[in-house]
Structure formats: structure tokens, C-alpha cells
């Protein structure tokens, strides 16, 4: 909300320096967003007369003008399309400085220059170049009778002001006006607040004799004040009024509309003026309709207003959308001679919904939806009437009607002073609190030594509880002034959660393996999601802003593929990525909520080349085994190696188990998916459920030292010929199970098929290491074991020893 410094100064004496006020506003919760100056002193700018206009020889859009500046004739090149002979204009002569600055805030000095080869000795100014407005549609044309060659400041009124734009939090409807802001400042600075005198109406009628007002929807409209004023004359507003409104960015319309806007920005009460002749039968009804209603608002836009929205109607038709915008059909125009001023209280929720549905936030709806002062309706109407009578002394108030079905209930809150001290952590003087509260309009009575009885004013609907009053004290006292607590910072003996430790350890280990962490979107498009399963098994958002964010990722794979593709397109030779994040799927029971599965996963992915051509080796692509080695290193470093089993679940997929529960898999990305993401090299990834890794991680207990063996072990190599379809894992498991406890380690040192091996067979060579903690083993000790292993393999898998 924009505040005019001159205007604000009418209600409270402000410091010279606007910065001081702006900073203070921020510190009392009315945050300054921007402060700037408007208006100009017009120094050096003079009036001129256009004598001749010729086409520029080298540029279609430019004209070459000859201008009389009172003493000589100047040649000025001008780009405006509205330039004409005989116009009186504002001229910035050579070496003069414009009242505005360039984008960098530097002054603009007019120089003698050639524009497309034609000499230009000055500038004919547009309004924006003089700081009057943002209008750059053409040059500023002065009245015909303007004297030539005189300072522009003599013929054009120039108004200077400073504007503070503040952000108002939704709990502060009282601060949406100049008086409201001045009230806060007066409480902060302990200075006097000057409120303009407002006349009391001669008589307030509840039932008018000239105008009848009826509220059908008393839930939506708590109070409606109508003031019927006759003998008005619609004309332009006087300069002071225009300056006030234009300073805060409003357009001056006419005297009546400007006054309603003025009072709204002064007091916070939105007002509306109807042309009383357009109100059929002089009857006002406040009601809503059960179906949507087409309506043309005064901005000449036809709107479809949803059912339930509150309308102001006459006895035939709607004439305004309550609290949002008036109608074209009853708008004040040049022909208007009598008006009905509306000053009402509409229920905030109702106005908010309507403004939202219409996507139409107006200065009025902005205030109504926060909750205006329900006790201000008559005063604001009278303030506007006073101003109308001041501008139009012959106008006459016919009657003031106040229909008031819902009355405001005063709130009284008891404030415990020890509680203030306890919660803010500082002792604050009771007199200071009372003084501050009174300045804020809160009446206080000291009921006992430690208790204040507080009457909340009608303009502070946000003050409902004791805690809200404590906040008011803190707000004005300034949180920056609260001293450090005497007890200092406290510490905790609680250990880090194991879940956190587990996740951190996983991250740390993977980084150690040389992977770069990525963060990918957890919302993907349906089209993309389709590649990763059935949409019906996934969780979708109901109202995404765009189609790119419809479905919650069922896996971390799409994010990795996207990142791999992004980097491939930017000529990265290879990627080595990991991500830790949540995935979502539909589940009968669900993790936290019925129907929704949400689990933390970790993904490791590689694609492209491990390294480029190098003097030591030709470039080589990542392989499945690279990823498998890293995965096993990770699992081992988490202490999980001995719990893991693997099974080849598909030609390109290896599934991992802990105690027969699948915890994840390593996989080669299919050709089809590779194509979807435009990846031309093989992609391998491993994805694991961290929640399940965590279960094993926390159950492993503390590290127990095992003595280093004193006796040397012995190695034994066997090469086996097996059918091609029997995988290594099967043989390894069989060997482990039959070799007994002396077996320490098995390696596979050769895999061979081809010459000398029968078709559909392969040879796998194993190196077995045996160790006995109590003695040195010799070959005789292990021969029986080997024979046993071979016999068993032969029996189960028809395996032969390769001779």
C-alpha cells in the first residue's frame, strides 16, 4: 500500500527524513517495500511554440521541428507522432537537466546532437520525461494561451511528494489507511495524532423516507449506511485532491469518485457513490443470487459473477458487486445531479471469495476481505459528505440512513503483566504499556497490580486473546531491544536420530565413491510417468498449474535419466550421479496416510564414458560391473555386506535382498527408455529403499573386534565346467554352503567359453581361501572339503572339474 508522505504528515508530525519514517514503519511491522520521490522542480524547462514541422529526411518516424523558445528559433528533432504546428510545448534546452534519472539513477543532461544526420538543439518533452506521469504516448501539449519562453514551473503546477510503499500483513486491516498508519507511528513515537473533525449527521434514520435500504443477506452485510445528497455537480477535482490521489498511484476521475477514494485511503472505509437517479424506485437491497449472474462493472467489463456472491440491487437489477466494484448502470457521470453514498460493512470471507472467484482485487475488496472497522461506517460517510459540501457548497444532504442488523460486540481482554514478562523475556514498564495501548486505541484499566483490563477498539479485530496483546507490546517495544536471556544458550544431551545418521552416512559414502549428487523434480508429467509403470499405481496432483507437474515420481530413475540426458546434450562425456529422495505410489495401507506409499530411496547411476581417450588407455564406457562394484562398496561400508543376497531377476537386472525382502536392484536401462531420453550410450542404475537399508543398519549392533589370525591360510583353485544358464551366484552360494567354516573367501578369477569347452557350457575358475584360527592348514586338510564341494556341485548342477 502506497503512503504519501505529505498526506501522512497531516495526521502526525513526521521527521524531515523520510528514511527515518520508513525504517520505523518496518520495525513496527508495516514493512517498507520501496520509497521514492515523485514530482519535479522543473528547473531549466521552458515553454515554447512549434513554428514548423517537417519530415526528417532519413527517418520516417522522426520530425524536424522549428520551435520558438521566446528569444530564438531552435531546431529540434522529435519522435512523437502527436507533434503539430502551433502547439505550446515544454522544452528542455541544451545543457538543461531533466527532472528524471536514467535506469541507473544518473541525471539526464540534454546535449546538442545530430539525430540521423540532422542537428537537434534540445528536446520537446513528454509527461514521463518531466516526471509528471508514466505517459510516453506523445509530447505534453500545453494550453493554447500559454506564454512562450517562460519557465514551465510558472504555467504548470508541479507537486512534489515522497512515497513509501508498505506491505501489510493480513492481520492488520486497521493499517490500510493513512490515519491507521499514523496511529501506529504515534504509539511508537509517543506523539500526537491529529484526526480531522467530522460533522455529526443531523439525524440518522433506520428507515429512510427518500431512499429505502433493505439487507436480505445479513450474514454477508452487517451494516449499510446510505447518504443521499442532492444538487451535486460533477466536475474535475481541485488540485489538492488530485495531487493526493495521483501521488499514491490513483487516477483522478471526478470530484465525487475522488472523494470516495480519498476517504478510503484516509480512513480505510471503502465508499461507493451511485447516481441516485439510476436507482430504480430509490430502493437498495443487499442480497445474493442462487445462480451465477452476468454483470457489467464500471470498468466496462462483462463478468459472470458466481452464485452466492453479494450484490447491491435496486428493485429491478443488480447495481454493484458488493465490496468489489460498482456497476456501469449506476455509475456517477457528468449528468449526475444526486448521489447515494454507500458506506457498508461486508463480511470478509464473502468478499474474499468473490474477489478471488472473479480474479478481481480492488482497493475496496482488499480492505473488506481483511475486515474493516464496523463502527466507522457513519463517520466515513460523513467525512465524505463534509468534503463534498466543501467542494460543492450548494449540495444538500437529504438523509442519512443506517441499516444495522448485526452490531459489533466489544471485546475485553484481561492482560497479566507477569505473563508479558515471562513470554517476552523482558520486564516492561506498566506505564509504558498503558500509554502505548492508549495510543493504539486500546483503553486500559489497572484492575490489580499485575492485571490490566483492556477494551479492544472496533478497528482491531485481530486482537482476540491475551497473546495478541503481548504481541502488540513486543511490536511497539521493538524485538531488537530485548536483551539476551540471563541463562544463555541451553544444550541438549539427546543424540542425533539414527535415521538422520543413516542417511548422512549413505550420502557420505557415495560421495567418497566419486558420485555427484543431483536434486531432481519430484513432480513429473503424466507422459513421462507412463514410462515407469501404470499411472493408476501412482499419485497425482489434482490441480497442477501446468502439465509438467502432474505426477509424483514413483522412482528416482526419471530424474536421473533427465539429468543424464541434459548433460549428454551439453557434451559431458559421462555422468556418475546419485540422489536421495522420496518416491510415491498408491498403497492400500500407506506409509503415513491411507492409500499413499511414501518411501525414501537412493539411486546410483552411471552412463557414458568412465574416461576419455588417454595415453594410458583408450576411452572406456561405464559397465554394469563398475556400478556393481560401487554398490557393494557402499553396502559394505554401511556394514551390511553380510546381510545381502542377490538374485539375477532378469537378463539385465540383479535384485538385492535382506532376509528375503527385496531392498532394491541394479539394472541396465532398456533401449526404449534410452531412446526416450535421447541417450545413446548404455545407462546403468541401482535404486534401493533407504527405509529398508535403515532397518538393517540399526540392527547391526556395535562393532566387535575379531582377533587377527595367527596362522597362515591356504589357497586352492578349481576350474569348473557348467551349463551356460547356471549363474555364478548359484555356484558361489553352493560352494559357501558345502565348504564349511574354514572357507574364508571365494574369488572368481576366470570365466571362459569357446574353444575346448563344449557348446552351451562355460568354465568358471574359483580361488578358495581357507583358514583355521588354531593351526596352519596344509593341503591334506582341505582336499576332503574340495572333494565334497565338487561332488555336491556335480550332483546338483552336473558340474565337471576342468582338467
Amino acid at each position, binding site marked *: 500500500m502506497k503512503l504519501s508522505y505529505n498526506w501522512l504528515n497531516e495526521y502526525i508530525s513526521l521527521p524531515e527524513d523520510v528514511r527515518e519514517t520508513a525504517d520505523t514503519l518496518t520495525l513496527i511491522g508495516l514493512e517498507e517495500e520501496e520509497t521514492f520521490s515523485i514530482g519535479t522542480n522543473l528547473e531549466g524547462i521552458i515553454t515554447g511554440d512549434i513554428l514548423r514541422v517537417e519530415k526528417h529526411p532519413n527517418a520516417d518516424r522522426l520530425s524536424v521541428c522549428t520551435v520558438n523558445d521566446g528569444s530564438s528559433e531552435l531546431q529540434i528533432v522529435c519522435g512523437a507522432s502527436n507533434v503539430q504546428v502551433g502547439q505550446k510545448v515544454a522544452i528542455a534546452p541544451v545543457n538543461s537537466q531533466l527532472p528524471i534519472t536514467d535506469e541507473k539513477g544518473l541525471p539526464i543532461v540534454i546535449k546538442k546532437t545530430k539525430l540521423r544526420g540532422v542537428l537537434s538543439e534540445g528536446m520537446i518533452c513528454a509527461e514521463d520525461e518531466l516526471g509528471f506521469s508514466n505517459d510516453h504516448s506523445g509530447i505534453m501539449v500545453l494550453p493554447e494561451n500559454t506564454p512562450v519562453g517562460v519557465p514551465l514551473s510558472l504555467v504548470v503546477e508541479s507537486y512534489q511528494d515522497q512515497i513509501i510503499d508498505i506491505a501489510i500483513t*493480513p492481520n492488520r486491516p486497521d493499517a490500510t489507511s493513512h490515519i491507521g498508519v499514523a496511529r501506529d507511528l504515534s504509539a511508537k513515537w509517543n506523539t500526537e495524532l491529529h484526526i480531522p473533525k467530522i460533522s455529526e449527521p443531523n439525524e440518522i434514520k433506520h428507515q429512510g423516507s427518500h431512499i429505502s435500504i433493505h439487507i436480505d443477506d445479513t450474514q454477508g452485510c452487517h451494516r449499510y449506511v446510505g447518504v443521499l445528497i442532492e444538487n451535486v455537480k460533477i466536475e474535475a477535482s481541485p488540485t489538492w485532491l488530485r495531487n493526493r490521489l495521483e501521488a499514491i498511484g490513483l487516477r483522478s476521475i471526478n470530484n465525487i469518485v475522488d472523494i470516495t477514494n480519498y476517504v478510503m485511503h484516509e480512513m480505510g472505509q471503502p465508499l461507493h457513490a451511485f447516481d441516485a437517479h439510476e436507482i430504480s424506485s430509490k430502493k437498495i437491497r443487499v442480497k445474493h443470487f442462487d445462480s451465477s449472474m452476468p454483470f457489467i462493472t464500471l470498468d466496462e467489463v462483462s463478468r459472470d459473477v458466481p452464485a452466492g456472491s453479494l450484490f447491491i440491487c435496486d428493485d429491478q437489477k443488480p447495481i454493484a458487486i458488493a465490496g468489489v466494484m460498482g456497476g456501469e448502470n449506476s455509475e456517477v457521470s457528468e449528468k449526475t445531479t444526486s448521489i447515494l453514498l454507500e458506506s457498508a460493512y461486508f463480511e470478509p470471507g464473502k468478499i474474499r471469495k468473490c474477489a478471488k472467484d472473479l480474479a478481481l482485487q480492488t482497493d475496496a475488496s482488499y480492505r473488506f476481505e481483511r475486515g474493516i472497522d464496523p463502527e466507522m461506517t457513519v463517520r466515513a460517510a460523513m467525512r465524505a459528505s463534509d468534503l463534498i459540501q466543501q467542494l460543492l457548497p450548494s449540495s444538500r444532504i437529504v438523509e442519512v440512513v443506517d441499516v444495522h442488523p448485526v452490531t459489533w460486540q466489544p471485546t475485553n481482554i484481561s492482560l497479566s503483566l507477569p505473563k508479558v514478562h515471562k*513470554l517476552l523475556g523482558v520486564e516492561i514498564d506498566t506505564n509504558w504499556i498503558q500509554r502505548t495501548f492508549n495510543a493504539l486505541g486500546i483503553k486500559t484499566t489497572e484492575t490489580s497490580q499485575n492485571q490490566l483490563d483492556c477494551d479492544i477498539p472496533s478497528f482491531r479485530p485481530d486482537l482476540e486473546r491475551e497473546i495478541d496483546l503481548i504481541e502488540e507490546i513486543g511490536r511497539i517495544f521493538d524485538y531488537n531491544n530485548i536483551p539476551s536471556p540471563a541463562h544463555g544458550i541451553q544444550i541438549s544431551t539427546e543424540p542425533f*536420530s539414527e535415521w538422520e545418521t543413516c542417511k548422512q552416512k549413505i550420502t557420505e559414502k557415495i*560421495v567418497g565413491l566419486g558420485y555427484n549428487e543431483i536434486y531432481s523434480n*519430484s513432480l513429473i508429467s503424466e507422459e513421462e510417468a507412463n514410462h515407469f509403470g501404470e499411472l493408476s499405481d501412482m499419485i497425482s496432483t489434482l490441480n*497442477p498449474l501446468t502439465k509438467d507437474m502432474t505426477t509424483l515420481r514413483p522412482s528416482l530413475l526419471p530424474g536421473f535419466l533427465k539429468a543424464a540426458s541434459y548433460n549428454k546434450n551439453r557434451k559431458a562425456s559421462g555422468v556418475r550421479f546419485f540422489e536421495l529422495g522420496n518416491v*510415491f505410489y498408491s498403497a492400500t495401507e500407506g506409509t*503415513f496416510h491411507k492409500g499413499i506409499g511414501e518411501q525414501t530411496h537412493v539411486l546410483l547411476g552411471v552412463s557414458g564414458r568412465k*574416461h576419455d581417450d588417454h595415453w594410458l588407455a583408450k576411452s572406456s564406457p561405464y559397465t554394469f560391473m563398475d556400478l556393481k562394484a560401487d554398490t557393494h562398496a557402499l553396502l559394505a561400508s554401511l556394514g551390511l555386506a553380510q546381510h545381502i543376497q542377490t538374485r539375477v531377476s532378469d537378463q539385465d537386472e540383479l535384485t538385492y535382498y535382506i532376509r528375503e525382502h527385496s531392498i532394491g536392484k541394479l539394472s541396465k536401462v532398456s533401449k526404449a527408455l534410452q531412446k526416450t531420453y535421447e541417450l545413446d550410450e548404455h545407462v546403468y542404475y541401482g535404486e534401493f529403499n533407504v527405509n529398508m537399508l535403515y532397518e538393517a543398519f540399526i540392527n547391526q549392533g556395535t562393532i566387535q573386534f575379531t582377533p587377527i589370525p595367527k596362522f597362515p591360510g591356504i589357497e586352492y583353485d578349481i576350474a569348473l565346467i557348467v551349463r551356460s544358464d547356471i549363474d555364478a551366484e548359484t555356484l558361489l552360494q553352493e560352494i559357501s554352503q558345502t565348504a564349511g567354516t574354514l572357507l574364508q573367501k571365494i574369488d572368481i578369477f576366470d570365466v571362459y567359453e569357446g574353444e575346448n569347452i563344449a557348446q552351451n557350457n562355460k568354465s568358471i575358475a574359483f580361488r578358495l581361501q581357507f583358514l583355521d584360527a588354531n593351526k596352519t592348514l596344509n593341503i591334506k586338510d582341505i582336499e576332503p572339503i574340495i572333494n565334497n564341494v565338487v561332488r555336491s556341485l556335480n550332483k546338483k548342477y552336473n558340474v565337471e572339474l576342468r582338467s
Partner: protein
Amino acid sequence: MNDAVVQLIQQIKETQISTSQDLEDFRLKYLSKKGAIQQLFKTMGSLTPQERATFGKDVNDLKVLAQNTFEEAQSRFENQHTVLNSATDDLSLPPIAKNIGSVHPLTKTLQEMKSIFYRLGFNIADGPEVEDDFHNFTALNFPPNHPARDTQDTFFVRKNEDPAIPDLVLRTHTSPVQIRLMEKQAPPIRSIMPGRVYRNEAVSPKSYFLFHQVEALYVDHNVSVADLKESLITFVKLMYGSDVTYRLRPSFFPFTEPSLEMDIWWGSKESGKWLEILGSGMVDPNVFKAVNIDPEIYSGFAWGMGVERMAILKYEIDDIRTFYENDIRFLHQFV
């Protein structure tokens, strides 16, 4: 001293050893089995015992001199890298580079924040990203028609008329984890809750439809605004250096009362500006009531801040979308 010995001493001292051939020649001439020194030792048999003792000592000294001269020259040659055995023995050749692992800048920032909170005695908790209306809004004192509940800002996952089945949303902030924590744990509670949150907003350099927050919660007897302030100041000093300039200003959040925000001064004294870095406040009594904690007995503070915002400030990143592009040239900068 024997003349031959004197002569040899003289010769050795004068020998110039400048090539490896010279060195070998020297060795053959003096130190080999057929060399001059061995020859002298062989003549010892013809000497008297007294002569033998003196002569033996002199020849031995000579031998030491020759040996030292030889070793000195040899080590001189070894230190000269003038001779290469093979082109690939060049130790200055580059190795095959290992990929250096890295955490994402958001993780890095988060790690830093976590370690600061750990010093302040805070634990770490987390909760689901798909959240119900109660935890995301109602328990946090959002009135039924609060703008934040509007479909425009919130991603809905489930919405229906049946009051028994809660609406589900993608959490719009990490504050619902506060509620979960207070539901299951009695005070004292001192925890931070980092996590991913969602806003149904158009993507631009300044905003993204998901981002990360860290929420901090402290509930105990006698927790005051002064405690909150002290924690906030300690945090920003540890995060941005002890000379950081900051200010607190009143604000509004439905779930805290009083509410305040913290700004830090960013940039030089002349051309810098205040930047909002976090929102905070004292836990609203209505929030305590929603989780059955008695606000007459306990008080607490909460605060929340954006991880992206912290990272953007820290690393001077100009476009929030950069975080989610995962360009390897970006990621490698955060090793």
C-alpha cells in the same frame, strides 16, 4: 706416509667425475678388486708389523676417501634427471582422473545449517511430503478460508466431501512436522525439520514449484522471545559470520504469536540492502491446543527458512532453476 699413498691421495683429489663413464672409470681404477687400493693392501705382507699398522691405517683412510668421492659423485648423478629410460616413465604425465564426488549445493547448505543447529542442541526430525489437511493447515491455526488453503497455492492430492477422509496435499511448508513431533513427544522438544515443500506456482528465475525448508522448534517451560532472539542471532552469526548485520521486525504467521522476521544486511554499507532470511515466532497457543500441550505450562518458539534462499545468498546463484538442472559443471563446483 708411503709415497704411493700420498700420490694416490693427490690423484683422487684431482679427479674430475663429470659423466657416468668417469664414475665407472674411477671405480675401476681405485675401488675394484684389481684397483689401485687393493693393490696397496696386497703389498702389506712384505712389511714389518709396525710398518703394517701405520701403512694399513693410511691405506684405509685412502680407501675411505675414494669411496666418499665415488658416493658423492654417484649421488650427484642420481639427483640429475637427465637420463630418461622411457617416454612413459615421465612422472609429469597426467594420470587417468578419478571423478570427485560431491554433494548438491542444497545438501551442502543444509549440512552447514544442521551442524549449526547441532551445536545449539537441536535434533533432526522429518515427516511425509504428502500431508493431510490437519497437519498442514488446521493444527497450525490456519482459518478455514485462509488464502494459503486456496487451490492456487496448494497442490491437492486428494479432495473430497466426506469429512471422515481427510484432504491430502503436498505439504506447503515443513511446519506439519512440528505437529507430528509434538503429537508423539512430550516437551522438552528441540528439533529441526528439514525437507522438501511444494507451491503450485509458475516457474521463474525467482520461484520454483518445489523448494526446501528447515523448520526449528523448541518447546519447554519458560521459553521466551528473548530465547528465540538469542538463538536466531547465534544462528546467523554462525551462518554468515559474527560481523553480520541483522534486524528483527514484527510479522504475521497463523501458527506463531508474536511473529517476527529476521533480515540481514547484504552487500556493501552504501549499496547493500536488507534481505529477509527467515520467519519465526512464539508457538501460537492454538497450535499447542491442537496437539494437547497445555499453553499455560509450556511455551516455545519456531522458525523456518528456505534452503534455496540461503544457498543463493551463500553462492551468489542468480537463478533458482539451476538447482534442478543438475548440470555437471554446476555440481562439480561444490566438491
